[in-house]
């Protein structure tokens, strides 16, 4: 016993001294980390503490936020029950999932097709021009994109003119005023904005394919189309799988901008998703606790989805995102 204590005390003394020495040694590194630490504490972790709002009945008044928060009446899961049982839950979840899944369905294949198509082009100038222009929508804000979409879909916009010219319809369709079109508008809008840019990753993957494989396929009598089916696509499969997993992780994050900017009173029943709903109740109707509860529900479920997706991808592919 006696002999055992001695080394333990020495061991515990040494790390303490090392920690102090290391702190001094690494003072510049820690100093450089400081802005980021303060940032994370203030703008990431304090809001997480503020999530306590979802469990109380927070009444906005002029007092100090924290003081008021911790003196508010504790209501437990009341706001969550309220959300699940007032009928909005079904509509909001339907819209969120419909919007993201439809977007996934439309926007996922597009960059793959673009990358393959671009890869088959031999004219460098044409290839570069198409590439450059197709990346552009990614860099504009959703505000500008929404302006463009509203213009294109307006009653005398190009889409209506085209539909009339093709005799598909003889009257202008008011796309943005009817809920039934809304999910499609968001899905196609998202695709329009991101398809070119997302193709970069696939182009990179294609450029790593050994050219001899194409030669071999050609010798075997494969035409251009068959070369794509039997050489290009199999080599893209790992990239496709990773990106699909990544996008499944975001299935609850429908995106605030597009739903907020393109939606309006007439389409609200279809355009309201978790983020816009929380925005409306929190900042416009001042139901702070209720909106926090909706936001917390969103964050927790989104986080769980990411963890599950990551776990499954580790199991299935031996590839994990974090």
């Amino acid at each position, binding site marked *: 016993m006696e002999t055992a204590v001695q080394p333990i005390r020495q061991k515990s003394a040494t790390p303490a001294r090392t920690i102090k020495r290391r702190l001094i040694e690494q003072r510049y590194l820690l100093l450089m980390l400081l802005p980021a630490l303060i940032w*994370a504490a203030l703008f990431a972790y304090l809001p997480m503490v503020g999530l306590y709002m979802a469990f109380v009945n927070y009444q906005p008044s002029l007092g100090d936020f924290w003081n008021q928060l911790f003196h508010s009446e504790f209501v437990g899961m009341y706001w969550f029950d309220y959300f699940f049982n007032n009928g909005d839950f079904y509509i909001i979840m339907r819209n969120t999932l419909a919007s993201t899944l439809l977007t996934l369905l439309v926007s996922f294949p597009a960059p793959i097709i673009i990358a393959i*198509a*671009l890869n088959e082009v031999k004219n460098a100038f044409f290839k570069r021009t198409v590439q450059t222009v197709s990346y552009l929508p990614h860099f504009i804000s959703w505000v500008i994109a929404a302006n463009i979409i509203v213009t294109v879909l307006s009653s005398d916009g190009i889409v209506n003119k085209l539909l009339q010219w093709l005799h598909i319809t003889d009257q202008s369709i008011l796309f943005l005023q009817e809920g039934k079109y809304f999910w499609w508008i968001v899905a196609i809008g998202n695709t329009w904005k991101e398809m070119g840019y997302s193709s970069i990753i696939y182009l990179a993957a294609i450029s790593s394919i050994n050219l001899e494989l194409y030669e071999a396929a050609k010798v075997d009598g494969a035409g251009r189309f068959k070369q794509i089916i039997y050489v290009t696509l199999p080599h893209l499969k790992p990239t496709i799988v990773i990106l699909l997993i990544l996008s499944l992780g975001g299935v609850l994050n429908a995106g605030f901008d597009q739903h907020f900017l393109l939606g309006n009173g007439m389409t609200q029943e279809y355009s309201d998703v978790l983020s816009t709903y929380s925005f409306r109740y929190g900042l416009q109707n001042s139901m702070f606790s209720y909106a926090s509860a909706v*936001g917390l529900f969103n964050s927790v479920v989104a986080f769980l989805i990411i963890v599950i997706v990551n776990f499954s991808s580790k199991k299935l592919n031996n590839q994990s995102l974090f």
Partner: protein
Amino acid sequence: MLGKSNVSDKLFDLMNYTLLCLIFVVTFYPFWNILVVSLNDATDAVRGGLYLWPRDFTLASYKSIFRNQELLGSINVTVLRTVIGTPLSVLAICMMAYSLSKRELIAWRFFTLFFIFTMYFGGGLIPTYMIIKSLGLIDSFWVYIFPGLIGVFLMILVRTFIEQLPPELEESAKIDGANELEIFIRLILPLCVPVLATIALFIGIGHWNSWYDSYIYTYKPELKTLQAVLVKILNQFQTGAMVSEADQLANSSKRTPVSGESIRMAVTMVATLPIILVYPFIQRFFVKGMMMGAIKS
């Protein structure tokens, strides 16, 4: 056999070029159309049917934008936040990446997880709003700079880059007696220029494009960013208000009455143009940046 495959190859090429031309038109035309409408006489534009060229060319819409104090002010705020916010963010992210690239840093694992966790979980809109409010950032210019100061994903990009630098460089600097601060300023910062340019670009475009923080955290009209003003114009256009914001803007410049549509297009163009103009010069950078991100994940 050879002839048949030649024909099908030709057919393939035809389909392929058609598809790509379609993509070109779909991504390019909307921008062109906005330019056309914004350059057309406003009263004439109401007639519609403007597709490829302005019918009645005029710069009146642009002139009225640059005579409007609210819009001019918002352009000012947007430029200012981009110019101030971008270098601050880049510096903070780079310092953070350098520290976290050192595995021997005390509590390295804790710090890394501390930041990574913020990528996947957050307080959400309302608690964040309350914190911003209790920090006194409402109606302050700094609300544009501080809450978005760090991008953890961008930090990972920079850290990966730093980790790929040859360790001998740093070791020799250390032997010369340089401390980490000196190494960072004299060695790491210059070496990181390519990756820093990449993230500066992303951050700069983010600043230029952002409207949400301006929309919810500022009430003073003189603090509104260009995109936030554009949101207002879009909202009013969408709800079809009798006297729209755009019309008001138009009529505030008395000399040339301009209707809402052309003004909306001109403001959209002013918000888009800087991106289109810097875009050709920066394309190389972001493709490279995207590749780096791809390798990491």
